[in-house]
């Protein structure tokens, strides 16, 4: 036990308290469910539709791209903190390193724009030129082989 001992104790105690609270209320609490009570609460309005709706995947794409920008700021911020009080040769050295980093970052960004990942109405799909090969037979589902074979993209 040293400096980290208290952290372990804290983790153990907080785990214990949470367990006791959750299990305790589950064991001790009375359960009288009515259909009305078990329906989800939606600001007092009668609920309609399913809760787990499908979201367009583009939302997640934008979220991921946001992370790209986010991390870039994290890097910039910590670098600039050191940069302002550093001697010139160090500023040049780290500046060049940052330039390399930004080259990669801009490339990624450029790629995103180029392939139209931010165009909401266009579904990017694989160009047929990528797989159509005159030496290959055309795709015919009726020739699919044994019945259990995985039919891709049905």
């Amino acid at each position, binding site marked *: 036990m040293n400096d*980290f001992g208290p952290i372990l104790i804290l983790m153990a105690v907080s785990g214990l308290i949470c367990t006791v609270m959750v299990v305790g209320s589950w064991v001790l609490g009375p359960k009288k469910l009515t259909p009305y009570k078990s329906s989800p609460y939606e600001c007092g309005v009668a609920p309609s539709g399913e809760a787990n709706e499908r979201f367009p995947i583009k939302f997640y794409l934008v979220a991921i791209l946001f992370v790209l920008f986010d991390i870039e700021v994290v890097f910039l911020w910590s670098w600039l903190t050191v940069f302002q009080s*550093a*001697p010139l040769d160090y500023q040049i050295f780290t500046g060049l390193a940052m330039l390399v980093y930004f080259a990669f970052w801009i490339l990624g960004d450029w790629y995103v724009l180029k392939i139209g990942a931010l165009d909401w109405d266009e579904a990017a799909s694989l*160009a047929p030129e*990528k797989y159509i090969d005159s030496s290959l037979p055309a795709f015919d589902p009726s020739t699919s*082989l*044994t019945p259990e074979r*995985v039919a*891709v*993209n049905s």
Partner: protein
Amino acid sequence: MQSELYTIPSIDWSLVMPFIVVVITGVIGLLIEMFRPKQNNNAIVLVSLAGLAGAFALLIPQLGVTTTTTFAGMVLRDQFGVLLQLIIVAGAFLSLIFSEPYMKQRRIAHGEFYPMALWATSGAMLMVSSDNLLMIFVGLEVLSIALYCLAGLARDEQRSEEAALKYFLLGAFASAFLLYGIAFVYGITGSTSLAVFMETLARAPGINDLTVLFAITLLLVGFGFKTALVPFHQWTPDVYQGAPTNVTAFMSAVSKVAAFGAFARVLEASLPVQEFWMPALIVITILTMTVGNLAALVQKDVKRALGYSSIAHAGYVMVALLAYLQDPAKGSLGTVITYLAIYTFMTIGSFAVLSLTAVNKSEGTRYQDLYGLWNRAPLAAGCLVLFMVSLVGVPPTAGFLGKFQIFQDAMGAGLPLLAIALAINSFVSAYYYLQIVRAVFVDEEGALRVQSAPMNAGLRFALVICAVGVMPILFAPILSQGKQTVTLSKMIESGAFLQRPVASVPLNPEPGEKVEQITPSAPLSTVTGN
């Protein structure tokens, strides 16, 4: 103080040149894909293969040179790292070269595959060429994040999506374990360097410190996930089965080699508290071999069976690694490296043959889908038989040589239990490997209806290289001189690897604190104060 804080590290670019070549090749590949989106991938394939070949050529002259560090100690070049990088680059090359025809058949010929595979390769190279935990982690993430995407390359197919999601969730979980362990190491030592970690462990209180045990346990769990050791292996069969076959080949070789390289360094640094983790790892290793092989027996899908087989093989590599750690004089890292190299050839070759089962947008990898392969593609079928025989470890193949060496090491190092478990498991594994061999030769009426893709030049090339790779003659010289050249203990002797002179790295030297001098040869009991 001011000048020390802003030291510009001296950089030896030649050390990181292979890594840079691979990264830049990936960038070029992406640029080609950006500007020729509707074209075929031939240009990207050529550039990628040329880049990997260039990196391989740059690595070869580094083999003989002495251990050095650069980038302020962040990058380490030693023989162990260079050899593993060679295996990684070769593995990436072999799995890329048969990819294009396969991906065309599957209709997933995304040009982005090549840059991402190259960046994953660069991450793997980084992982094995540093003894700094943070660099290892960065390498691991570069490798893993690219692999998560690659596993879901066939994005229209549910199994591929499932593989990507499972791999991502479990991989992220494992990374968190690893990172937490690294945070503990930093908390203990004030550094993320494994050399400093080793010195701290050798000092009192060593094993009596709960924090140390916590840190090592977390690191073990993290690497256990990445190397697919048994209680942490659950993701492997699903991911290997669901991912496109060329990605599976890449994953099973490159990612495993990299994880074992980093794992070996971490375990090496944890040697002062060996009595804590050695018994646990012995149990884990036996479990890994046994569960991997037993579960493979009942599989109906070849890719899945090979996934379990890769778990079992991770166990075999662990036996070699533990033998070395138990007794560096008897065991040898040369055995670990050799077996990883042999395994790379065997596994990539097997998956390359399996890639033939993808025809016209669909793919079947069950045993039945291999029926009659002997008639349709004799070269591929013959090679598959060779790889299976080598995976079992039948004498004339390199697989036998590697296993025999591991067996010898384990017996010599005083781990007979592991050696016996290895031998028994080799017999058990013969059953399902021979199932695959049998499937190739089945010539029933049903076999006539099975189709496979036409043979292509890339696949032929990969198969021939892999088939040559399982010829034992290639590895005999490495093994015979392995004990002299590749052991880390040799590097420790030269003072260049993990155990640097203690005085040169003062650890948070506080006034009045007595820094104990450790002699590397001192028995563990006196060092740990037990």
